[in-house]
């Protein structure tokens, strides 16, 4: 699954650690999501969407689309 987490984070001027703290997860989790190596759980995806004021489908896009 592709995502725009890195660009959204950059727009806010946040470090990976800052985003990890906001989401309550480890920095490695943010790194893995940004690289597309880890698909977040649904609750975490909702928290990410809420944090950036977007819908989940605005941030995460399935590979086949």
């Amino acid at each position, binding site marked *: 699954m592709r995502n725009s987490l890195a660009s959204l984070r950059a727009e806010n001027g946040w470090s990976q650690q800052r985003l*990890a703290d906001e989401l*309550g997860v*480890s920095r490695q*989790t943010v790194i*893995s999501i940004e690289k597309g190596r*880890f698909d977040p759980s649904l609750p*975490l995806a909702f*928290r990410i969407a809420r944090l950036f004021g977007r819908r989940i489908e605005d941030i995460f896009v399935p590979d086949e689309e």
Partner: protein
Amino acid sequence: MDGGSAGSAVARSKWGKVRVGSRWIAAVPPAIALGMVAAGALGVVGAALELVPEHPVVSGIAVALATVSPLVGLSWVLLVDRSTLEGAADRPEDSVEASWYEKAASGAFTDILLVTGLGCTALAFAPIEVEGLHTLMAVILVAFASFGVRYAVQRRKG
């Protein structure tokens, strides 16, 4: 869907805290106390079993001294609220490390079944006797090794 955690409300510390009623206290003192009590109990058992018949008291003391450190460590692991440790994630279940752990544990379980199955088959035909203690130790070592390697591979993949 959002669950609260102790770590978000309680000041975190290097060695964490444990909840006693409505209060939070440092986890180390009760861990030391519990570990020493458990080691003392094992020492009494060791003395009662007369592991060294000529010196039962000395053998009991030796057992207590040998087990106090690991039992204090084990007590801390069992008592401490992990969310009160410095650097702990508020929601570790959503972190990628939880995914690595799950995959490693699942793979290790399959490995144990495979190794013990093959081992049983081999021993059924081989003309050798194997002690139960050695067999169980080998199973534990296989489990540790399998989990460790699989977790390291998951971590490397990111």
